[in-house]
């Protein structure tokens, strides 16, 4: 079974800081991998290593079975969608998309044809003769995507591609991104710090922190069975008790004591479809998600309970 990308024990050192610390990762053909982490977690550095913009201090990168560790970006079977899109401002949209084909020596006519096809795939066929600055943010994003996809890379790398868009457009583009990925079947590696975006997109979710991979797997696995304390708190909210974590939606109100003890409500936030409640127990501050119609107020004394099977054991 040949994996699209294999990263073997890669470290990157900038002076005295270790940006990547002995990271290993596998990307399967046609998969959508999301690297999730806070800023400084090493996710962007890992993407740069895959794209060839950053040489690792140690370790190897195999792409399509070939050792690409020291291959420059131009000769790698990867392309990148940059956060600022990096569209060529002096070229039309069509020439932007066709640029990679021009570099590969393709003749003008088929080049235009392929560029047109790819623009149609991203839903921008009509923008062929326009200049990048005449497009909206979401449209530029799609041009960048088309430009990177048209050269048929083995892996497409996306560096916070939705970061510059407003929230509503971001949610809409993230659905489209997933649809386009299914349509073209290329493996995508996508960097983000937005966990909602990560969960919506990923087949394979990789949670990073301080230059290391904290956890990986399907979003469901990472959410329900996080491997580390960091993964449990960064991917969704949790209340941590000792070395166990409980998700807010798994705590319920009970009359009397309950298996989590009694607590006093200290904060209630109405969120539309639910209420987010903070309750101070004897030692722990519980985060609880309650149905929106539950009548509750700050200062109420309640009992809290949780199905023991829902408790997540964390490695100590």
């Amino acid at each position: 079974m040949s994996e699209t990308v294999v990263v073997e024990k890669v470290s990157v050192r900038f002076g005295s800081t270790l940006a990547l610390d002995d990271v290993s990762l596998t990307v399967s053909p046609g998969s959508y991998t999301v690297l999730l982490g806070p800023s400084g977690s090493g996710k962007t550095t890992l993407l740069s290593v895959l794209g060839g913009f950053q040489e690792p201090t140690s370790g190897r990168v195999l792409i399509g079975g070939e050792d690409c560790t020291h291959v420059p970006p131009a000769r790698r079977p990867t392309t990148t969608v940059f956060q600022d899109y990096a569209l060529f401002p002096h070229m039309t949209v069509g020439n932007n998309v066709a640029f990679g084909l021009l570099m590969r020596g393709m003749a003008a006519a088929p080049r235009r044809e392929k560029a047109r096809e790819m623009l149609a795939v991203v839903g921008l066929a009509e923008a062929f003769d326009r200049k990048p600055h005449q497009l909206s943010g979401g449209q530029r994003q799609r041009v960048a995507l088309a430009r990177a996809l048209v050269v048929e890379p083995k892996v497409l790398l996306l560096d916070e591609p939705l970061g510059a868009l407003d929230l509503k457009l971001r949610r809409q583009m993230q659905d489209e991104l997933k649809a386009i990925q299914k349509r073209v079947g290329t493996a995508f590696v996508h960097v983000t710090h937005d966990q909602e975006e990560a969960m919506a997109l990923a087949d394979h979710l990789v949670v990073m922190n301080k230059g290391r991979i904290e956890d990986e797997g399907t979003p469901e696995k990472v959410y329900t069975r996080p491997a580390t304390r960091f993964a449990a708190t960064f991917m969704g909210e949790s209340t941590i008790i000792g070395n166990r974590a409980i998700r807010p939606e798994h705590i319920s109100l009970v009359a009397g004591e309950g298996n989590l003890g009694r607590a006093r409500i200290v904060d209630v936030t109405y969120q539309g479809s639910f209420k987010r409640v903070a309750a101070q127990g004897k030692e722990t501050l519980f985060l609880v998600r309650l149905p929106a119609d539950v009548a509750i107020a700050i200062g109420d004394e309640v009992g809290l309970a949780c199905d023991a099977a829902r408790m997540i054991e964390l490695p100590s």
Partner: protein
Amino acid sequence: MTGLPKNSTGWFCVTPALLFTLLFFVLPFLGMAVLSLFPKGGEGFGFENYAQFFGNPSYWRALVNSLEVTAIVTAVSILLAYPFAWILANVVPERWQRLALMLAVLPFWTSYVVRSYSWLLVLAENGVINQMLMGSGMLSAPVQLANSRAATVIGFVHFFVMLLTLTIYANLKQLPPNYRKAAADLGAGPVSAFIHIILPLTLPGIMVGAFLTFVLAIGDYITPQILGGNNELLLPQLIMMQIGRRGDFSSASALSVILMAVVTIAYLASARWLKIERT
């Protein structure tokens, strides 16, 4: 993505400019510095040129004149240009500002020599001002306006008012309008808003303009030569005199080194305002 690529392309591209500057700027300057230590008609190596400069009051006086004129020009130009730039930026309606600014710097486009000459037309003994004043009976005999320090200063101020208006205007326009609103909101009147907010924020621009004025004015030969005449010499005139009348390249070199040193001191004094940054 922090590391820049190391390869020969960089060297290949930087070499022409670097070599050119070394060969035609650094080397000539060093040559001048060396030549200044071998006085004309002297016995080889010696400091006579510098001794002469600091010993001979008529030489020394040229530097003092230059510094005085430059200081007056810089101060007067800023005092005239700041309110003008302020009016252009804040009183003139937005859509006329570009035109107003272009008009204000239009005479920039006359050649430097021509600009000084045209002031001569205005200030000369039979020039426009004297003729007008005599025609209206305010004067019975023409007054000496040209060939004086005042004429030199006027010629310089004319040029630098335009230059400083440009730099100060650009600076004023860069200030977010909310600063002034915030100051007013917090109870500052227009005067204290200006003193506490606007002036400190435009000070870097003023410093850049002042430095430019200083460097360009102190090294200029044309304006003092055409408008000031030879009644009092400024340093550049003295330098030109060394090679013109006396063919003394060594002494001219020494004086150039001194001029360069004065500019360098000014540069070091204002260096922190003058950084070239990438955007």
